[in-house]
């Protein structure tokens, strides 16, 4: 009999794999089913976003921003135009402010639906995924009605919007909100409180508050760890201070604080809060006004730099823009929330099984378009 020996196996998950949410590659070192090390390899979707920005004018950047986090383009646009408006010191009309909030929150719901659906798919639940896609479709229909695009909108312009909301939009949105709230309970019955789903996600991939803060994790992932930090409340931008909404945080109902289930739950509850915000915004919105009123003819910001951040469905999206007075920026740096979320993966998935690593990855809700840029 020879000498018996065991050996660690390196498993290459991706770049072509059903559940890497884009083209991500994970080098996973496994001891049987147990994972001893995870190394994410990124860059398969790199498109030189930041370098591109240096060669085009400020308003031409917006479509590129769309393509970074393509699941929540409205929120990305919002972040960028906020930065530019602060730089140019533009006062944006009331109506535009409200429409922007409505669009951003609707896109937040759409993004969370996709995040939760694919998370369900990662743990093997197929049906909730399609239910969530069905409802996301209704939001996309509303976007299509407004700006003609279903995924990459180029809707928010510096100082205004590309189109006013079409007639009937407000009624249709109210209709959608009435339809959507009961659906949230259906998802909860089908997936959230399913015994197997809880078994798979509770206590799995615990992200402690300290670890989350040290890595700079933001958004629902941070709030899932019990840290109440949301830019919409804590550093209120645009007109978010006019609305009444809560910030859900993970409390470890099913396991411990910061586990995958908590991250799921925070997103599920955030959709409910977004519905509240949209309803209030629709109620308060002034019905007439020109949305292109404040759009400047010529954009040439003064010399200087600005860092502006906003809360997208994935967390804090920051834009650092340097201008030297020319129509093109000298430097645009984007702080990607999904990138920091991915960076904790190798830390929190050690010692779990292969299936758990994919569940944890799903719970972090990354978008590769934004990570690679």
């Amino acid at each position, binding site marked *: 009999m020879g000498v018996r020996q065991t050996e660690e196996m390196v498993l290459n998950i991706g770049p072509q794999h*059903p559940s890497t949410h884009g083209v991500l590659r994970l080098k996973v070192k496994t001891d049987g089913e147990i994972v001893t090390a995870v190394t994410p390899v990124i860059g398969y979707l790199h498109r030189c976003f930041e370098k591109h920005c240096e060669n085009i004018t400020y308003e031409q950047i917006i479509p590129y921003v769309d393509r970074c986090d393509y699941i929540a383009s409205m929120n990305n646009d919002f972040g960028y135009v906020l930065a530019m408006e602060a730089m140019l010191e533009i006062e944006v009309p009331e109506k535009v402010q409200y429409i922007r909030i409505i669009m951003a929150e609707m896109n937040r719901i759409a993004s969370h639906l996709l995040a939760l659906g694919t998370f369900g798919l990662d743990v*093997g639940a197929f*049906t909730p995924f399609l239910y969530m896609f069905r409802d996301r479709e209704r939001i996309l229909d509303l976007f299509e009605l407004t700006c003609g695009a279903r995924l990459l909108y180029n809707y928010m312009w510096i100082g205004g919007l590309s189109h006013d909301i079409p007639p009937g939009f407000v009624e249709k949105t109210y209709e959608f909100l009435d339809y959507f709230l009961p659906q949230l309970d259906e998802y909860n019955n089908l997936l959230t409180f399913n015994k197997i789903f809880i078994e798979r996600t509770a206590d799995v991939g615990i992200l402690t508050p300290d670890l989350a803060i040290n890595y700079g994790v933001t958004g629902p992932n941070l709030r899932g760890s019990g840290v109440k930090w949301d830019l919409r409340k804590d550093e209120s931008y645009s007109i978010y201070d006019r609305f009444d909404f809560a910030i859900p945080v993970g409390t470890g109902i099913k396991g411990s604080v910061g586990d995958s289930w908590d991250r799921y739950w925070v997103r599920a509850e955030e959709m409910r809060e977004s519905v509240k915000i949209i309803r209030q915004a629709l109620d308060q919105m002034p019905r007439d006004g020109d949305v292109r009123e404040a759009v400047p003819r010529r954009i040439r910001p003064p010399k200087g730099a600005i860092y502006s951040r906003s809360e997208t469905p994935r967390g804090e999206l920051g834009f650092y823009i340097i201008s030297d007075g020319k129509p093109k920026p000298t430097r645009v740096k984007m702080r990607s929330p999904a990138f920091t979320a991915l960076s904790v993966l190798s830390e929190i998935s050690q010692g779990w099984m292969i299936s758990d690593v994919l569940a944890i990855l799903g719970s972090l809700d990354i978008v590769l378009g934004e990570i690679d840029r």
Partner: protein
Amino acid sequence: MTISWLIDWVNNSWLGFLGVPGAFILAIIVSGLAIFGLVAVHAIVAVYVERKVSAFMQDRIGPMGQGPGLHAGKWGVLQTVADALKLLVKEDIIPAAADRKLFIMAPFILFLGAFIGFIALPFSETLSLANFNVGLFYILAVSSFGIVGLILAGWASNNKWSLYGAMRSAAQIISYEIPAAISLIAVVMLVGSLNMQDITRAQTGIVLGFLPNWFIFQNPFTFLAFFIYFIAGVAETNRTPFDIPEAESELVAGFHTEYSGMRWAFFFLSEYANMFIVCAIATVVFLGGWQSPFGEFLAGPYWGLLWFMGKIIFLVLVMMWFRWTFPRLRVDQLMSVSWKFLLPISFFNLFGVGIWELLSG
């Protein structure tokens, strides 16, 4: 109709010139083709039904294109036929690094395990291909034979995903066979026979005034045994929530990652054949086989076939319902369900059946 009846019939008809060995071979070929036909038709129908059921559950419409008069017809009823034709003519790919012989053999071994189990099924009072005294034991024995095919497929593909799938699958099937077998033994104890027809005949009549005298209703322990068997059966057929060997979000496609075309179709075929076998055993042992649920009403050899198939189809639909509702368990949770819950309960259950039988005389 049994094989021996077929041999006699061949000998006594104008085919008598074939002699006994010729009649034997002819009978084997005819019954083999009949089973293959059943398996293939069942798979084609079940895949179509599964796609439609899942579509309706998920607020979709499912396949609508391929109907009679292709592309123009209704409800896509020929979709799976078209798929099967496509698979038949597809390029046959064998990876360069694969172990050629084993790679080619594996799907057929797996299919064989499911296929030969059909011989002992009592389709109706008079129709079972081979009615022999260890029928139940035989089916359980040959259906665990298929696992060799799974492991071969995983190993021969020379792919890490396949290997993981095969290892998981081997562990899973072995673990779940024990509670499944023990819960079947509970009924075998009551009947005193392993013959499938005997087990079915022991369930004639009415119990509690209105329920059919099936083993699921006969006493509380056999009632429990049915559920243990069915859960273990779902696990043995690798279906959700126990589909970890081919979990597409983790292992791409598990043991059949490298397979394509007709070989892949054989994996598919044996999955559906296994589903049929598992549901057929549950039907025979717990749900009265070909017995009518209404006592003497609509009973008889021909109606029996209908009832038998109807009960199987019902159980298959339940399996589909599971698949499109539940998430998937993790591999260690899967093991603990089997060893920590199902196995102790099934032992307790076996004991309970014995006590019940002793007390009720």
